[in-house]
């Protein structure tokens, strides 16, 4: 049984008894149950290979790309069961940002921001498009840096700028939740701290679920933290509580650097 009890009212996301296996009988995510709070940053921590990415990808069903994947349990996003949603709708509601910045190399900065609309063949009036681009880039504090080079390739930007562009691309869809998988692990400290500040600001309007292998990052910016180990959700609670008085021995050992 899980070593925690945390009540979250009106969660943006409800994960119920979620198990995911790539190979039969071996669970990468093992019976995870958790509610995610709206308008806050929730961090998922744990040693490499403990199932953080798999859990995150189950939420927008990106894990279905793998052929033999098996999923049990339910995920409810804003009251809707994600398994009943068309993928396009689900992925509009749950935007994803990856470890390595991945703007589309053939597209301009402008087109990268509205790529979700463009690639899906959703036509927007020029005025609305401009608005979405400006709002999304402003939200990620990139507008002032790129407003004069909007039609240049996104791949000319620095790594940190590219990652903010990728966050803007997710924001353009006005998602309910933003899923980030170690978004700063490929970035330098300055770019990292910019993204951290950004995430704290973004939680006013969005709910953020972020995988991080960096404990101090979780401590700095998250309101809630999960600790996973071998596919299991070992501990989940307010970040402050978890870092000051962890309930589980494994959490404590991880936080004190005994493994990981």
């Amino acid at each position, binding site marked *: 049984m899980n070593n925690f009890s945390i009540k979250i009212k009106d969660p943006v996301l409800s994960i119920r008894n979620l198990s995911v296996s790539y190979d039969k009988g071996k669970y990468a995510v093992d019976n995870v149950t958790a509610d995610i709070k709206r308008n806050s940053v929730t961090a998922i921590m744990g040693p490499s290979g403990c199932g953080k990415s798999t859990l995150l990808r189950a939420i927008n069903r990106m894990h279905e*790309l793998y052929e033999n994947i098996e999923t049990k349990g339910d995920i409810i996003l804003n009251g809707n069961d994600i398994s009943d949603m068309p993928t396009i*709708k689900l992925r509009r509601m749950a935007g994803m940002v*990856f470890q390595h910045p*991945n703007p589309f190399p*053939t597209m301009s900065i402008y087109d990268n921001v509205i790529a*979700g609309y463009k690639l899906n063949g959703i036509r927007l009036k020029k005025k609305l498009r401009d608005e979405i681009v400006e709002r999304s880039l402003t939200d990620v504090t990139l507008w002032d840096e790129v407003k004069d080079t909007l039609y240049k390739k996104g791949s000319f930007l620095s790594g940190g700028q590219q990652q903010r562009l990728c966050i803007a691309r997710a924001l353009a*869809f006005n998602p309910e939740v933003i899923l980030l998988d170690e978004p700063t692990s490929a970035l330098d400290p300055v770019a990292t701290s910019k993204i951290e500040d950004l995430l704290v600001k973004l939680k006013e309007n969005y709910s953020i679920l972020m995988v991080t292998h960096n404990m101090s990052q979780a401590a700095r910016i998250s309101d809630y933290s999960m600790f996973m180990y071998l596919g299991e959700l070992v501990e989940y609670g307010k970040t402050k509580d978890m870092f000051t008085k962890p309930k589980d021995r494994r959490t404590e050992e991880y936080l004190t650097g005994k493994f990981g």
Partner: protein
Amino acid sequence: MSTIANKILTDNLKTRTLKNKAFKSLVVALSVITILPIILIIYKLIAKGIKQISFDFILKTPPDTFEAMTALTNGETIPGGIANGITGTLLMVILASVIAIPVGVVTGIYLYENPGKFLANLIRNVSDILQGVPSIVLGLIAYMWIVKPVTNGFSALAGSVSLSIMMLPMIVRSTEETLKMIPQTIKEAALALGVPYYKVIIRVLIPTSFSGLLTGILLGISRVLGETAPLMLTALGSTIINFNVSKPTSAIPLLIWEFYNDPNMVDLIWSSSLLLMAMVLTLNIMSKRIAARTK
């Protein structure tokens, strides 16, 4: 350190640098031998062929052997040109591309998408084997498939089919290889935006690998541009400009072969070869530049 030891060391160093230098010179000399033939070829073609090149050469068909002989005896340049060959080559290469590009690109995408599958491995191996099949055999195949049953005689279509089979393996390979170079993360970025898989291929993967695809296609074209053997069995040749795909058609390499067999026309070999060589080089340089620009 003792002075003796020091001396041994510096001596060693001296002989070593000497050996290094000798070796480097040898490498340079051998490398020059590699580029020597191409320099000699280009020099020879320009020296012997340039005087024949003119607007007439591009716009007119070849003279008959009597006209050529008259010009020769009067010490004039041979009249006429190779317009039938130029148009025939363009017609057949374009038609071959129209056949080979879609088939090759789609096959390449299939191989990329299903790397381990039995059918994919089979296709990949067959495609490699196809690359090694002598071009005259491909001409024979096109003769059997097209000349007899379809066009009821020698035809540009049959020529194009034999050329397209030659182009196919190169396009398949280059498509698969360029797609493989696209980072998985780009694909994931599109999928995470809810873009359906087939649209990811058409609207993200192909545009991202476009220059690689183009390079492969241009190299494929330059490869078949000078092919003669398969065309002898399929397009046959023609003294007039022909745009009818079901009729016999000339091509630049076919004309070169015909000129070679007519003592009065031998001079036209050089100018025709010069033009063909210029086309092949242009395509090669273009594909190299495209490849370089995307790195």
